[in-house]
C-alpha cells in the first residue's frame, strides 16, 4: 500500500507542532536552571571573597576583644554571641506564643474565630522588618524594656530580640499549625472515646503526634531569627563595632547587624580592603549557619508528612 511511508510522521503529529513543543520545553528547562545558577553565584561569590579576606588578615585577628572591622579587629565570637543572645530572646517570645496560637487555631477555634485570627497573623507576617525595627526602637525599648530594667541603654539587644520575636511569631504559628492539622482525626476521636478531656487530648495526643513538625517550626524560626537584619540594625546599636559582651541590656552586634552597619557607614567601605571583604566572610558564615538549620528543619517537616 502507498500510505505506509507517511504513517510514522503522522503518528508523531504535525512537524510544526512538534517543533513548537520542543522549543517550549527548552525554554522551561532554561528557566528551571536559573535557580541553580543563582545558588552557584551565591556560593561562589561568598566563597571567593571570603577566602580573599582570610588571606588578607592574620588568623589571630579573628580572635580579639571585639568586632571593629575598620581597625582590623575581627572577633567572630562577638558576633556569634550577639546573634545567639538575640535569637534566644526572640525564641523565648515567639516559641511559646507561636505554638499556643497554632494550638488555638488548630484545636480550639471555631471556623469563625479562625477567619479573624488567621488574617491578623497574616498581616503581622506581611509587615516589613524596617517597621518592626522602628517599633522595637521607639516603643518596645522605652515603654517595656527601660521600664523594667533601669540599666537598659537606648540601643540594646533585649529590645531588638523582642522585636525579632514578634516578627517570627507568624512563621512559627503557621508551620506548627500545619503540623497539628496533619494529625489524623481518628487519634483525637480515640482519645475522646477513652474519656479524655480536650486539654488532655491536645497535650497528650495531638501535640506529641505533631512533635517533629513543631520542632521543624522552631528550627526554621531560629534560622529566621539569625538571618533577620533590619530589626537588629535599627534597635541593637553597635554601629561601627562592638566589644565582646554578654549583656542583653547593652548594645551588641550580630552577623547581620555587622554586615548592615559596615555597608551603611558614612565612609562606605571600598573594594579590596579587608573590611569590605569581611562582609562576604560574614555572609558565608551566615549562609552556612542558616542553610544547615533549614536543611535539618526540612528533614523534620518531611518526617511528619511521611507518618500520616
Amino acid at each position, binding site marked *: 500500500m502507498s500510505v505506509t511511508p507517511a504513517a510514522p510522521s503522522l503518528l508523531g503529529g504535525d512537524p510544526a507542532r512538534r517543533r513548537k513543543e520542543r522549543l517550549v520545553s527548552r525554554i522551561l528547562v532554561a528557566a528551571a536552571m536559573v535557580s541553580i545558577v*543563582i545558588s552557584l553565584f551565591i556560593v561562589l561569590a561568598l566563597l571567593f571573597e571570603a577566602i580573599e579576606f582570610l588571606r588578607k588578615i592574620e588568623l589571630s585577628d579573628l580572635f580579639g576583644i571585639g568586632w571593629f572591622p575598620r581597625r582590623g579587629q575581627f572577633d567572630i565570637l562577638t558576633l556569634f554571641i550577639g546573634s545567639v543572645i538575640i535569637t534566644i530572646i526572640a525564641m523565648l517570645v515567639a516559641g511559646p506564643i507561636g505554638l499556643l496560637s497554632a494550638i488555638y487555631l488548630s484545636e*480550639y477555634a471555631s471556623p469563625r474565630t479562625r477567619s479573624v485570627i488567621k488574617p491578623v497573623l497574616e498581616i503581622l507576617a506581611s509587615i*516589613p522588618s524596617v517597621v518592626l525595627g*522602628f*517599633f522595637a526602637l521607639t516603643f518596645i525599648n522605652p515603654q517595656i524594656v527601660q521600664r523594667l530594667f533601669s540599666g537598659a541603654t537606648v540601643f540594646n539587644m533585649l529590645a531588638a530580640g523582642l522585636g525579632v520575636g514578634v516578627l517570627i511569631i507568624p512563621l512559627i504559628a503557621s508551620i506548627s499549625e500545619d503540623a497539628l492539622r496533619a494529625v489524623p482525626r481518628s487519634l483525637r476521636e480515640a482519645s475522646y472515646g477513652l474519656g479524655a478531656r480536650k*486539654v488532655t487530648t491536645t497535650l497528650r495526643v495531638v501535640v506529641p503526634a505533631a512533635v517533629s513538625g513543631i520542632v521543624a517550626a522552631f528550627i526554621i524560626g531560629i534560622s529566621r531569627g539569625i538571618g533577620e537584619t533590619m530589626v537588629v540594625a535599627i534597635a541593637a546599636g553597635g554601629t561601627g563595632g562592638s566589644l565582646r559582651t554578654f549583656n542583653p541590656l547593652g548594645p551588641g552586634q550580630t552577623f547581620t547587624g555587622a554586615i548592615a552597619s559596615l555597608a551603611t557607614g558614612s565612609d562606605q567601605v571600598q573594594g579590596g580592603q579587608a573590611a569590605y571583604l569581611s562582609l562576604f566572610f560574614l555572609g558565608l558564615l551566615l549562609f552556612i549557619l542558616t542553610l544547615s538549620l533549614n536543611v535539618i528543619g526540612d528533614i523534620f517537616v518531611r518526617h511528619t508528612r511521611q507518618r500520616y
Partner: protein
Amino acid sequence: MSIETPTVASGAVHRSLKRTGPHWPSLIFQGLLAFSLLFTLLALLFLLVDVLNRGLPVFTARGMDFLTSPLSSDPTKAGVSQALWGTFWIGVITAVVAFPLGVATAIYLEEYAAGSRLTRIVDVNIRNLAGVPSIVYGLLGLAVFVGVFKALDIGNGRNVIAGGMTVAVLVLPIVIITAAEALRAVPIAIREAGYGVGASRWQVTRQLVLPAAFPGILTGIVLSLSRALGEAAPLILAGAVLGSYSSGGADLVGQLVGPYTALPIVVYRWTTLPQEEFRQLAAAGMIVLLVITFIANGLAIYLRNKYSRSW
C-alpha cells in the same frame, strides 16, 4: 442471689461522673491560649498606633507635599518622591524578571518533568534558596549585579536595575513555590481530558492548566511583590543611597542608571537619625509603606477567597 454492691466507692464514682465545679487545668490552658492571641493582637495594635501616632502629624501638616518632595537634610522639606520612584522601579523589575521566570520554572517542575532527577535537585535547591537570609542576597547583588554594571562602566554600578535584580532574585523562590502549589492543585482529570482530545503538552498546559491555576499563581505573585517592595536589607548592600542626593531633571535613563533609593531604605535612614523630626518623617514613610503592603495583601486575600474552588 444478691449481688454485693461496693457501697464505699459509689460516692466517689458518682462525684467524679457529675464533675461539678471548674476543671482547673483546662481553664489554665485556655487562659494561656487566650493570652497568646491577645499578645499577638496587642503587638500588632501597638505597632500600628505607634506608627500612626508619629506619622500622621506629618501628613496633616504638609499634606501631599511629603509625597512629592525630594530628600533633604531639612526635616521640614524632606519627602519621599525619589524613594517612591525607586520602589516603583524595583516593583517593575521584579515583575519583569521574577514573575515570568518563576512561573516558567513552576510549570517545568510540575507539568513537564515531575518526579525526574533534575526536578528533585531544582526543588531542594529552591526550598533552600527560600531560607537564605535577605542580606545574603544583598551580598550577591553587590558582587554580581553591581559588579557587572561597574565592569560595563555604567556609573558606579549602584543603580536601581542592580537593586531591582537583587530583589527579583530574592523573591524568585517564593514565586516558584506558590505557583507550583497552585499548579499541583489542578486535578489530573483536567489534563487527561485535554490529552484525550489530542492536545499536546503545551496546549494542555497553556489552555487548561494555567487558566485553572491562574488565581493561585496571581495570589503568590501579589504576595511576592509586597515582600519585594518592603525589603531594605538587600538594598543597603546593592547600592541604594542612604543620604540625600539630587535627581533633579533626570530623564528615564538617568533614573535607571543614576543613584537611587527606595522607600524602606529612606525610612531606615530617617529612623537612625537622632532628631525626633526625622523619626516622625520615618513613621510617615512607614504609613505609605504599610498602605502599599496592606493593599497588596488585601488584594491577595480577596483573590484567594473569590476564586478559591474545590474540585
